């Protein structure tokens, strides 16, 4: 950082300066986000230490209260890494809560049957969108926008009113606590962490993961290399649909009801978390671990605003927007360095 006074030609030479190398490092945004999270947490500690902010459970609650967002954001990470975008996340989450509540409460199906159905429907929805995007070359933005309308509409077709879930399996699952020494996690949070670990493995240690990066980096090159581009694209949207459905199930568990207006606009939170986590929206660069920190930062904003007490909820949106802006500018600075 201190050696930026070098002539610009130095960055062109074979051995880039340390500053350029640091700025060009793909892991930098993730580190920045992690650092930001730490700073925010410490600031929260120093400010609200008398109000119980220091308790480990406050930290655990970040995972519990944002488990569904984490799962949705992991799905969005896949799509964004491949250079696409998925706007149907929020609607699909809402639809899954409705479908689950309807099947469990109105149809009396046991949860064991309902869960695979909900996941299957979500994955199939994602598959359909991916299929249309790849085979008919319609932009992901428009196709997933149609998905947004479709699933939100299907919520309302199931029922206009919210359905609360009184099923004993659901409530006992929701209340199960996984003890972790100092605090506890909910089942949802554990599932979310498992999903995160799975995504990490798939993205970094499997062929499929490398294809996702390749297509996001440069679709043309990926095609010329002979990578099965269509299959990968469809798979990416299927993964996103599956994750959204799973997020919907976690949300159902968290809130114990289905409502046609659940999770409106959550696709924005998911995309924001992915961007704050350092994934380039152009695709091809980023880490799913960054997404975790992105979600945690968003969650921390919420809990700080709760602890503050006097701040209204809309400050969450403004803070998210400001953070988003800051991270986009950082990313911009990075990619600009890489090009020169």
């Amino acid at each position, binding site marked *: 950082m201190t050696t930026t006074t070098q002539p610009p030609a130095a960055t062109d030479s074979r051995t880039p300066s340390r500053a350029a190398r640091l700025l060009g490092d793909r892991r930098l945004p993730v580190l920045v986000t992690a650092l930001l999270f730490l700073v925010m947490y410490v600031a929260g500690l120093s400010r609200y230490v008398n109000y119980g902010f220091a308790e480990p459970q406050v930290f655990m609650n970040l995972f519990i209260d944002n488990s569904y967002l984490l799962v949705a954001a992991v799905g969005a990470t896949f799509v964004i890494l491949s250079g696409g*975008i998925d*706007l149907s996340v929020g609607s699909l989450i809402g639809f899954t809560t409705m479908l689950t509540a309807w099947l469990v409460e109105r149809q009396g199906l046991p949860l064991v049957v309902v869960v695979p159905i909900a996941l299957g429907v979500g994955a199939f929805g994602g598959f359909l969108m991916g299929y*249309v995007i790849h*085979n*008919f*070359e*319609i*932009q992901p*933005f*428009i*196709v997933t*926008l*149609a*998905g*947004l*309308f*479709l699933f*939100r*509409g*299907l919520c*309302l*077709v199931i029922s*206009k009113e919210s359905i609360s879930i009184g099923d004993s399996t659901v409530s006992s699952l929701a209340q199960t606590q996984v003890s972790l020494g100092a605090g506890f996690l909910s089942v949802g949070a554990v599932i979310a962490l498992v999903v995160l670990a799975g995504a990490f493995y798939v993205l970094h240690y499997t062929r499929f993961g490398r294809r996702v990066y390749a297509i996001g980096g440069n679709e*043309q090159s990926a*095609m010329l290399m002979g990578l099965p581009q269509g299959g990968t694209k469809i798979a990416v949207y299927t993964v996103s649909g599956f994750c959204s459905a799973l997020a919907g199930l976690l949300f159902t568990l968290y809130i114990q009801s289905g409502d*046609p207006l659940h999770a409106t606009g959550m696709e*924005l939170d998911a*995309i*924001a978390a992915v*961007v704050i986590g350092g994934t380039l*929206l*152009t695709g091809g660069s980023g880490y799913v671990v960054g997404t975790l920190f992105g979600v945690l930062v968003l969650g921390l904003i919420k809990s700080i605003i709760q602890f503050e007490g006097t701040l*209204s*909820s*809309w*400050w*969450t*949106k*403004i803070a*998210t*927007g*400001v953070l*988003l*802006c800051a991270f*986009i*500018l950082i990313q*911009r600075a990075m990619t*600009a360095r890489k090009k020169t």
Partner: protein
Amino acid sequence: MSTPSRWRALTHHHLFWPTAVLVLLLLVNVPFTPDFFSIKMTGGHLYGSLVSIVLFGSPLILVAVGMTLVIATGGIDLSVGAVVAITGALACSYISDQADQSALSGVLLAMGIGLLAAVVCGLWNGFLVARMGIQPIIATLIIMVAGRGVAQLITDGQIITINSEPYKLIGGGYWLTLPFSIFVVAVVVAITVALTRKTALGLLVESVGGNAEASRLVGIRSRRIKIMVYVFCALCAGIAGLMISSNTSAADGNNAGLWIELDAILAVVIGGTSLLGGRFSIGGTVVGALVIQTLTTTIYTIGVPTQTNLVFKAAVVIVVCLLQSPKFRAKVFGAKFGARFGPKSGSTPGAKDGGKPAAAPSETAATTEAAPQMEVS
């Protein structure tokens, strides 16, 4: 010989498909409400389904027209919904602070403040996109997320209701027997068409959308053009925001203009403007916005339960987009169709499209308007 070619020329006109969908949707209403097309004169005002479609559709038309130019430069503006909310919130909160809410000067000042805020949002978007080189979809996402928070901050989370006669005129008043907002829309559309089609501006916008770097090299200030279209788009959204808040005499930071950006983008796409940029059709966009509004009206009149509104909308979006996809048509209507209408000028060979039937409305638009760069590959 001549009849098929004339038919072909007609079906190849870029407004053909959007207009056909619009007419079809309008005709669907007739069996359900036989007097659908009749317009009655009651108390000096014209009433009728057609008038109300245009009246309720006018904010959408405004936003979509602004969006068209942004999309023509290869960008997208997601922040319009938030701008609608901010403008309405600012104008209404200013008016509600006045002692005399009906004072004309106060109302004009309120509108000025609202539109100024919209322009500032547009400048910010334009700055991020053109100067910082950030992808438009992300750059405008910032205001989309934060803007609604700002609007709620302005209204303090409440719904501000006002009682101001002059302000009511913009979105709910009548002038010369017609709703006043129709005139506002007509003026904005007329100015936009005049500026883009009677001057070189439209060509410049298309050129920037086709290839910003090449445009810069031939001496077009592409950055300035980009900033301009974002400001214009935000201004249109601002006017729409005034209209929406004036129609209900209230500012709702949370729900005003919710999802209007998606509807607007949809209207632009239905109107045959490619999301890739490089060409646009204002007329198509207006028709597209009317299609969306007619769809909503139709769903009400034919007695489909309102909760299926969104499913219908999704179905229409999918059908329209599939029809516009050259690949889909080649697959469904077969190779014969593709061969007959064969690849025309401007189609890039190979990689992207197979047998491209050139009947895509957007494409015809491009060939007739001779945009400098037609395909962004």
